[in-house]
């Protein structure tokens, strides 16, 4: 009797898992298949691909009307810059909140907690009008520029980053700071020589998550970057399938794979750290 129930439950478990696996893999299979499919449709009426060609990949790198490599470059630049600056500046502020006692600290932390729940694109109309104005004075950091978009991403990332990193810094024992202080280290030296190396792994994971977040961002990027050469991969690839729905699925699928594969590999190889970061953030806030 016992064995039949456990057998039954094992069958149930496996079938549940396999249903989910098929659900998970289906779109991934479709996108791989259509990236090699020269007809440019997303249909897979037969399970095995009918034709195979590199046409879609070639188009991405040779067609002058499709600056795909520029898009990739833009995304890489803006996501890297945002990851590095947001984490560095965020960690610096978080260090002050965690290690120093000053007037307004409590109020500051409480406001931070409130601010970090609002995604910055909620104020998109205001941001747009602001950056339109900035454009008339400084085109390089105004509407339509990657520089302006970076500034907005940085501002938007501050709340969450400071809040999460402060939670992490609180867990680094104070004794280290005190020992260094007795040896005559200044606050800046403690920050740079003790805190920074200790926190490096967490900072790297936060930077990676921030990188992926920026890579994925669509709303502000599509509103901001109208010039075809300033687009990010997200906006560029969307323009493939958004304009004439159904026409350009082949190149879209190929472009998606090229952009996604490195990210997926990084994610899977670092999943232990990333998931640790996820739950650490979760229990804190």
């Amino acid at each position, binding site marked *: 009797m016992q064995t039949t129930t456990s057998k039954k439950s094992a069958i149930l478990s496996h079938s*549940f898992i396999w249903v989910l696996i098929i659900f998970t893999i*289906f779109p991934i299979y479709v996108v791989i298949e259509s990236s090699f499919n020269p007809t440019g449709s997303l249909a897979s009426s037969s399970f095995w691909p009918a034709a195979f060609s590199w046409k879609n990949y070639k188009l991405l790198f040779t067609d002058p009307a499709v600056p795909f490599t520029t898009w990739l470059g833009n995304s890489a630049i803006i996501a890297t810059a945002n990851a590095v600056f947001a984490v560095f500046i965020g960690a610096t502020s978080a260090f002050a*909140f965690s290690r120093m006692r000053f007037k307004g600290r409590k109020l500051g932390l409480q406001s931070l907690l409130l601010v970090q729940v609002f995604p910055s694109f909620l104020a998109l109309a205001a941001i747009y009008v602001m950056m339109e104005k900035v454009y008339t004075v400084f085109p390089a950091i105004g509407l339509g520029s990657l520089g302006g978009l970076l500034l907005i991403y940085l501002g938007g990332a501050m709340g969450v980053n400071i809040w999460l990193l402060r939670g992490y810094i609180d867990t680094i024992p104070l004794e280290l700071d005190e020992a260094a202080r007795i040896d005559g280290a200044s606050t800046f030296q403690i920050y740079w020589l003790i805190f920074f190396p200790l926190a490096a792994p967490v900072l790297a994971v936060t930077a990676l998550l921030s990188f992926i977040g920026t890579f994925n961002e669509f709303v502000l990027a599509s509103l901001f970057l109208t010039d075809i050469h300033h687009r990010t991969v997200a906006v560029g690839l969307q323009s493939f399938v958004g304009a004439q729905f159904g026409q350009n699925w082949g190149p879209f699928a190929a472009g998606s794979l090229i952009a996604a594969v490195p990210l997926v590999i990084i994610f899977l190889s670092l999943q232990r750290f990333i998931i640790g970061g996820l739950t650490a953030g979760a229990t804190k806030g």
Partner: protein
Amino acid sequence: MHRLAGFTGLPAQILKIVFMALVDATLVAMFFASLQKHGGLLTVVIAVVFAALNIVYFSPRSVPLKFLLPGLILLITFVVVPVAYTIQMSAFNYRTGNEISKADALTQIMARGLQPDAANTTFDLVMGRVDGQLAGLVTNQTDHQTSIATMAGLQPVAAADLQMTNGKVSGAKGFTPLTADEAANLDPTISALKFPDGKGSFISPQGDAAVLLSESYIYDSKKNTITDTTNGEVYKDNGVGNFASVKDSTRLLEPGWKAFNYFRNYTHLFTDPAVRGPFVGVFIWTTVFAFTTVIMMFSVGLLLAIVLNQKLRFRRFYRSILILPYAIPSFMSILIWGGMFNRQFGAINALFHTNIDWFNSPWLARATILIVNLWLGFPYFYLVSSGALQAIPSELEEAAAIDGAKTSTTLRLIKLPLLLQILSPLLISSFAFNFNNFNIVYLLTGGGPTDVLHGKTAGATDILITYTYKTAFGSNEQNLGLACAISVLIFFVIGSISMWSLKRSKVLEQI
């Protein structure tokens, strides 16, 4: 200690001064550029940033501020200011037709009021320059009086000073006619010219001729009214950005201007049927969507965590595959799903040999959004649930087993309540995230199908944030004031949910 020493003293000071000098030089340059181009508030912001940086980094006091300042500047400039600006804009009549200042709007209205005079006075025209400035040599076709028209007024020319070609006036003393090329290049500038005639009317070039335009509107700045002299109609400033007819307040003079309109954007949301209908529909769907999608993702994720928590063969393999949706950039996945659900060539209809028009029926489109979001979100809930499951002390399970509880009972009565307690902050923040999940709606359905709700901008799957986006940047009409009012309402909803959640988790007291 020796390593530490390298970071103080002269080299560090020099580095700091060089760095600050570069920053200061940039800011000073930006300040003057902004001042020159009338940057307004922008100039003030640059000055404040400059002052703050120099005071904080060159005074020995306030070490915390030295660490906080860069983050603080970014946070204030790009989060706090836009939020404040959103609140301010939400109290303005700011939309297509009401975007400029009142002075600019008045100029445009008066320009539209210019009409040919009753006598239809027409002039022969020769364009040229006087002292380098564009001027017109005009000859009245009725009384044949020739004058030079400049921005300063009309200057009659004596017959002796005129140059004639084929019986027509072709030049005058002190007047240099334009060459044909010059005239062609300057055409847009020339047709926009209006030379005052000194009697309240204007001479406006129209090709080879010019006509006399007179102002049919009279603006009374004291009474704040405009009177149309052609039909005697009076338009009065309605206080919310337009001149409206005194007889019929819906008749407005175009364009209007950006004006303070108190809480009208908010009251419109609840009282104006054209706005209220779509808004209420969108609000309900936003809440239902956020709630349903979190429940779905959580249930599947939790079930998977429970199943994979047992000792199964290939557990690691299953796990690596099942977290893939979390690793793939979500905008791509959404677009791919969008293609797969396409009626004509999508993989789903092809696979099941159906011909379902997923995006054209409100309920199917909503179901599509929920399915795709489930695909995107269950791995996250699997990861956090499985973390939480492992965090539950095994003693609890053992104690229950000793008391004779079955595995399923332990799960239901002991593990699940604990799990819910651990994960509730995550569930709440996921609700808040999905409440504003722009990508899933905008990239999958675009908010459509649109024909269900009778509003101009809202579709059946639009959530508040996509509705805000369309209201602010729609192709037909853009209403930034109304969009900001909706944004402010979203702030309130998200803010109260988060505050409630934080109170529950007692995070605020731990600070």
